[in-house]
């Protein structure tokens, strides 16, 4: 069964999302480093939606849900907005370029792509869904490897 959390589109609610993801993964014996990285990936995706799609409007909401089947964890970030993010158009910037241009943004999706196994964006009626999945080995299985 999916677990879910809904938050108003404010940046200081990202901590609630991080705690939600961390708690779920801890309950499924995922290693501390894997938890930290997955927390980061979901945080980045939620921050993108909150900031770029909803301009930090607290009247808007996003919902984050997670399911686990055989250690394949699927996270969905849902929101309702007329102009969904076009993932196809995203080009990861070169780090040297980011520094030369004194930029402080555009790196979140590089992190997400490096952390998760799969990322999908889809439109369902009026909802935008960003779905990422990651397969983890249970931490207990790693002991003694």
């Amino acid at each position: 069964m999916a677990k879910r959390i809904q938050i108003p589109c404010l940046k200081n609610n990202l901590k609630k999302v991080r705690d939600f993801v961390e708690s779920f993964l801890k309950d499924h014996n995922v290693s501390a480093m894997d938890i930290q990285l997955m927390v980061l990936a979901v945080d980045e995706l939620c921050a993108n939606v909150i900031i770029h799609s909803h301009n930090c409007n607290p009247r808007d909401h996003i919902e984050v849900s997670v399911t686990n089947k055989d250690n394949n964890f699927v996270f969905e970030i849902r929101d309702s907005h007329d102009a969904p993010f076009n993932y196809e158009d995203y080009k990861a910037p070169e780090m040297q370029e980011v520094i030369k241009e004194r930029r402080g943004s555009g790196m979140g999706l590089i992190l997400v792509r490096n952390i998760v196994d799969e990322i999908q964006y889809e439109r369902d009626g009026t909802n935008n869904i960003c779905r990422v999945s990651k397969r983890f080995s249970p931490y207990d299985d790693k002991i003694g490897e």
Partner: protein
Amino acid sequence: MKIIEQKLDNYLILKIQGELDASSSITLDNALERAIQSNTENILVDCAELAYISSPGIGVFTSHLDECMTRDIAIVLFNTIPSVRKVFSILGLDAIIPIVSSEKEAKSIADGKTHSNTMS
């Protein structure tokens, strides 16, 4: 998130406590901006109590790095926990921004500025 600033000889130590994310990165941005504008020679960032960093936190460093290089100001991070270090590493920034394990090493890197903040 809290930043404690400590001036020690020609070093400014910024001790970051807590989580650096989209909501808190502005605090570090302001601290770094102040440090650069006040002609600090060396900025050492103590990350021992930095529990978490996401891309807006990383972005504070990338947005100021070029100006630091132009002004010959060293930025060195030290005492990072593994998960924070990993974020810099995924982006390849650990090859651009020096990240070392102790304050002593950070001072040593800053003193030999030719070894820090270099871009190939």
